[in-house]
């Protein structure tokens, strides 16, 4: 037995020296939302901490700090808090439009270096102040959860393209593609709305896409689209839910560049205000929709060209088609590129009545 003498010795050492920093769930402040606003020349940072009441309702407490460096903001907030503020369960990070237009790379650096921040954190640009959004009260599951689920449900079943921290970083670092972020607006003290899409050029926001253009944008960047669209023609209004869509880019010509974009949409008619649906009626709606998609998508692509941004990723696409691709030349040729949008719409379901 003599050779086992080290076991109690080891246990003792471990007990004495082994302790590492604990983060017991009820002894830390778990941040669910971080907001960065601009106030004058300084940043105004706010960290939203859910406060769990014994009756199972959740309230929010907001730490704020002012400073010129983002890291400094966190440090200041920490100083006012009785418990350590941790970011491992972060849900959303909001930037006000001024900050976003000035660029957010240093904020990204904070995220990249801290391994405790997940890749599924949602970033968004806010119309107004991020702090104001945090101060609202949305539902009883906490504001962080509400905002995250708002964005998630909108890209799962709505017109928002897939977006989170990873997607943003992916697009940001991808050559020939520019990132986008959802654009939020508080419409009521207890309601936040997705008002559109903030389009970035590098790290800066240069344009904001309106909410009604989202459907067409998503058609061009995302496969599993479950968005919805309202179609108006002389026979009345129809509401189409798109079940499935695919996009396909092709290079038609290289000098100057000419791309063809083919969009295939399988839709489902859920509402029709006109007379009863006749056989030709569906065909007509399909045609009308194709026309609308072509027009809007082309308009979008041209708008991006004008702003010298590329959220669709045309640059990345042409890079994958070309050996030894030169991005410097591409910047110029992008301006001269032209597009050909083709849409194929098929309405596969009309509901239970005809």
């Amino acid at each position, binding site marked *: 037995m003599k050779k086992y003498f080290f076991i109690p010795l080891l246990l003792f050492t471990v007990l004495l020296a082994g302790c*590492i920093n604990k*983060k017991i*769930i*009820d002894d830390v402040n778990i941040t669910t939302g971080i907001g960065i606003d601009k106030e004058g020349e300084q940043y105004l940072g706010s960290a939203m901490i859910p406060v769990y009441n*014994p009756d*199972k309702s*959740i309230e929010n407490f907001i730490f704020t700090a002012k400073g010129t460096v983002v890291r400094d903001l966190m440090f200041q907030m920490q100083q006012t808090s009785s418990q350590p503020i941790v970011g491992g369960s972060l849900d959303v990070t909001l930037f006000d439009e001024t900050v976003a237009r000035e660029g957010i790379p240093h904020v990204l650096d904070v995220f990249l270096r801290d391994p405790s921040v*997940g890749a599924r954190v949602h970033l968004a640009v806010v119309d107004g102040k991020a702090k104001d959004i945090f101060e609202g009260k949305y539902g009883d599951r*906490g504001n962080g*959860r509400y905002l995250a689920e708002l964005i998630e449900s909108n890209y799962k079943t709505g017109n928002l393209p897939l977006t989170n921290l990873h997607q943003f970083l992916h697009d940001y670092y991808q050559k020939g593609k520019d990132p986008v972020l959802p654009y939020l607006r508080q419409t009521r003290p207890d309601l936040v709305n997705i008002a559109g899409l903030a389009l970035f050029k590098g790290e800066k926001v240069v344009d904001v896409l309106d909410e009604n253009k989202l459907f067409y944008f998503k058609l061009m960047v995302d496969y599993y689209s479950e968005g919805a669209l309202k179609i108006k023609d002389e026979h009345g209004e129809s509401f189409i839910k798109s079940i499935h869509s695919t996009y396909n880019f092709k290079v038609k010509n290289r000098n100057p560049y000419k791309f063809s974009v083919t969009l295939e949409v399988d839709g489902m008619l859920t509402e029709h205000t006109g007379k009863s649906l006749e056989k030709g009626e569906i065909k007509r709606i399909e045609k009308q929709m194709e026309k609308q998609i072509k027009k809007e998508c082309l308009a979008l692509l041209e708008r991006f060209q004008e702003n010298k941004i590329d959220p669709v990723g045309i640059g990345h696409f042409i890079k994958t088609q070309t050996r030894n691709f030169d991005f410097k030349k591409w910047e110029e040729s992008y301006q001269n590129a032209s597009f050909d949008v083709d849409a194929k719409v098929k309405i596969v379901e009309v509901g239970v009545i005809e």
Partner: protein
Amino acid sequence: MNNFFKKKKRWLQKSERSVEKQEQEIKKSLDYSKTHFINQKNNKTFTLTFIQTLVDDKIVNNNMLPPLIEEEIASVKEVEKRLPMSDIFVSKDKNEIENKLFHGYVMVTFDDSPEEFAFIGAAKNIGRSVTSPEIEFSVVGPKEAFIESLDQNINMIRKRLPIKELIAEEFKIGELTKTKVCLLYIDGVTNKQIINTVQQRLSEIDKDEISDSSYLTQIISDNGNSPFPQLLDSERPDRIVASLAEGKIAIVVDGSPHVLIGPTQLTEFFNSFEDYLLNWILASFIRLIRLFAVTFSIMITPIYVAVVTYHYELIPKDLLSTLIISRRVIPFPPILEALFLEVTIELLREAGARLPTKVGQTIGIVGGIVLGTASVEAGLTSNVLLIFIALSALASFTTPVYQMSNTIRILRFPFLFMAELWGLLGITIAFGFLLTHLLRLTSLGQPFMEPIFPFRVKDYKDALFRFPFNMQAKRPIFLRTEKPQRFSEEKAKKKKDIDE
């Protein structure tokens, strides 16, 4: 085996002690009886010596005395021939006296030749009758369980295996208790090396007292310092017979209602005999459930401690609020909270086991409900943890083998300690130690983790799963039996074609 008897113990070796001296020693006991009788035919006097408490009066009065007194018997030789009893033998060895008397024999001596003794077996059998199994109870199947009598136990096994190949070797173990131990195996099936190992280990035992088969488990196990039992004990004769038929050995100990089986594997400890009585699909499913339950039972509290102490990031957002709310008022760190509850559960179990059945049940229910609710309300423990602990206690009861369920109770404490130290990382390291320990274990020289490692696909048919009987045509590989085939596989597999 013979070696064993040659090595007689030192204090017995005071050979050739006089009959008188032995008598003097034995006389001190109150139940010593020595009576003189006279044969009516030839007027010879003879003496009966026996220990009253060990001898059945009826045998002495009805079967032994009438012929001894009424018939013409003049010497111990004639006693052996004329008495209508089978268990008689004659000896001149004085050293036998003590041994035989204390095993319920009646000693007959004739006064004219006091150096010759006849020993007549008249042992009294006091013991309970066969009852239904309590620990390994099953709804279907035989309702017989072993009792404390070796003869009765072997009888139950022999009844089920009426073949001459079933060998029962006897050992006497214990300087004081002289416990009869019987090694059973089927000759021509069981691996000789395994038999040799057991024979050697049994004959090498040097202990004064053996009261139960569990003593033997601890003494002859390959690794005595392991919390894991390496020999299976069972109270069901049917299970023993099934194991013998597989090619294992069984050890029956006089005075113990549990029979040992070896060599065993880890997975066997999570098999109940009922698995063989049920359809194979149900049985396999139940086995998997049990394995899951065991893992759950060991791991859940350590995981709770690890996650709540270190890894709040892991918790899903919706669960996070539940957990935080439940822990809000708890003044202790998670490890103390968990230890407090675990120890409470252990106390309840221990108290329940020590008290009479009826009271024990009440204690369990009252203790569980009242203590649990009260400690949550008092803010000493969180209700989420209480649910986990209760579930893990419940899960640990699914282990069919009692010894193993004790092991499982103990195992979670090192895990808890490591979880407190390094969170999930600590749990992994504790798991590494557990795994290594299991890999190093052997049962009678055979690897304990088989068939998982060494990896033997063919032995999975009756380990983690229980495949249908027609797929069990071969004996387990790890037993290295001399006759690997149990029955003809072809016959079992043959199926009729459609419409034949």
